[in-house]
């Protein structure tokens, strides 16, 4: 049992981390709330004025806000659908006995380590460019008209880029979960005459349910904050076609210098993220007890 003495020391050792995180959370958060109640533009220093909830009213009634909300939702759901379904299939494939499994694994995981700015620019220019991108070459080779991805399907193009980056993450986690599946259970069901489809839906998928939930929740946290991919490819356009909530708030605060409006948007983003976070925390919290 720890002694009284070691308890005091333990508390001392944890306090720097706690104090730093507390400061990191409370100071900016407090300031964001404060700014959100001001009329505050960086181009008009010294003109700050108390405006109550005006910033929120403007932000929430701005048509761009609804576009951004919709785009955020489409982006998150689209990437989740592709990565979870693709991840399950890939994990099942990689779990099979194959030659060179280690190398295939390394190939599949690689996109996760590519920085977002590189991945977005490579996709935009070398693959999706309608004149000299590889997809255009392929289309011409097949006698088809090249498709201008970022002009005609901008949000879908971004979904593709982001999915490519996150597919490895989903695959790796699902593969790890798959490998802990009891093979005797599968063999027993096979002897009882269950075919592959039945085995998948009644044994494999329920076993993966927990890992899938973890993948969805963690990816959602990151996907809500997608920024660099949009900044270097479309800068939110054309129009607001690829503006998500994060990019809208960035543009409001640092491109239009509207600190008050940006801060109000920030608070709204925090509230939305918290709704997701509550679910994630419950999942992980449950695991702590086990």
């Amino acid at each position, binding site marked *: 049992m720890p002694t009284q003495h070691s308890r005091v020391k333990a508390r001392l050792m944890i306090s720097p981390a706690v104090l730093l*995180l507390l400061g*990191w959370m409370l*100071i*900016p958060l407090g300031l964001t709330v404060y700014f959100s109640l001001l009329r505050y533009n960086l181009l008009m220093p010294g003109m700050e004025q108390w405006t109550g909830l005006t910033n929120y009213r403007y932000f929430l009634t701005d048509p761009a806000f609804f576009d951004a909300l919709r785009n955020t939702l489409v982006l998150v759901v689209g990437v989740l659908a592709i990565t979870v379904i693709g991840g399950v299939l890939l994990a099942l494939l990689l779990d099979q*006995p194959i030659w060179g*499994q280690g190398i295939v694994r390394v190939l599949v995981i690689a996109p996760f380590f590519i920085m977002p700015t*590189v991945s977005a*620019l490579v996709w935009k220019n070398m693959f999706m460019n309608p004149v000299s991108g590889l997809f255009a070459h392929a289309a011409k080779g097949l006698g088809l008209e090249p498709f201008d991805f970022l002009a005609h399907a901008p949000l879908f193009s971004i979904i593709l880029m982001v999915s490519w980056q996150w597919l490895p993450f989903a695959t790796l986690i699902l593969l790890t979960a798959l490998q802990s599946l009891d093979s005797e259970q599968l063999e027993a069901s096979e002897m009882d005459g269950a075919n592959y489809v039945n085995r998948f839906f009644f044994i494999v998928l329920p076993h993966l349910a927990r890992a899938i939930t973890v993948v969805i929740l963690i990816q959602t946290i990151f996907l809500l904050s997608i920024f660099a991919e949009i900044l270097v490819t479309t800068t939110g356009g054309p129009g607001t076609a690829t503006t998500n909530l994060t990019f809208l708030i960035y543009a409001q605060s640092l491109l239009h210098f509207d600190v008050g409006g940006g801060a109000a948007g920030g608070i709204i983003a925090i509230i939305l993220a918290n709704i997701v976070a509550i679910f994630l925390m419950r999942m992980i919290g449950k695991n702590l007890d086990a």
Partner: protein
Amino acid sequence: MARNVTPARKATMTAIAWIIGLAIFFPILWTILTSFKTEAEAIASPPSFVLFDWTLENFSIVQERSDYFRHFLNSVIISVGSTVLGLIIAIPAAWSMAFVPTKRTKHVLMWMLSTKMLPPVGVLVPIYLIFRDAGLLDTQAGLVIVLTLINLPIIIWMLYTYFKEIPVEILEAARMDGATLRSEILYVLTPMAVPGIASTLLLNIILAWNEAFWTLNLTAAKAAPLTAFIAAYSSPEGLFYAKLSAASTLAIAPILVMGWFSQRQLVRGLTFGAVK
């Protein structure tokens, strides 16, 4: 599902897996190949895969034009600096939570994780203004501070899950033998915890290296790391695929190699121990 499979089935599965694996890896391979082409060959139709005149000139042009080494150095300082600083703060905290748990430990851990859920854009404005007033905009120190704080919860969690696996009895035995807290950590805990600390270090350097919200918003020229170095290639001037590829290859190569080494730790690190 390693049961008796026919060689034919294994060969089919192998072929499918390799085709998909190569397809997923292809954009990276293509970028690396293009970085060795001339600009004319980079946009040639039909594109050539390996039968072109290999050249290294793109790399020297990129270095000359946008000073790769300075950005590389900034990336190293920022990612290693923030990770090491984070470890210094996190090791004692994770130690005390793993070995001297109290009723509140679980709540503290969950609360720490919850700070990670804060969307960065929610605090962009105040951080930007604080940095502007403190003269921290576009400095390495500023980015080290921010990245330390945003990755601290992950570092603490990873260390905590590793420390949890160390048998307490050994530490108690050391304490019985009269080891002080300092020597307990230094000579007993640390050697057993080194593998966990090493993988935490590796994963966090990767996360910090690729971080592209704060590094893009808080730097301009002086302290810009590789994420910003690449972003400068978003407005093309003339023929630039080969140069873009060379810059991209230079930016991703170091971390790709590290990433492959750390892939096994990735799962538990990024799921906070929920999937092992």
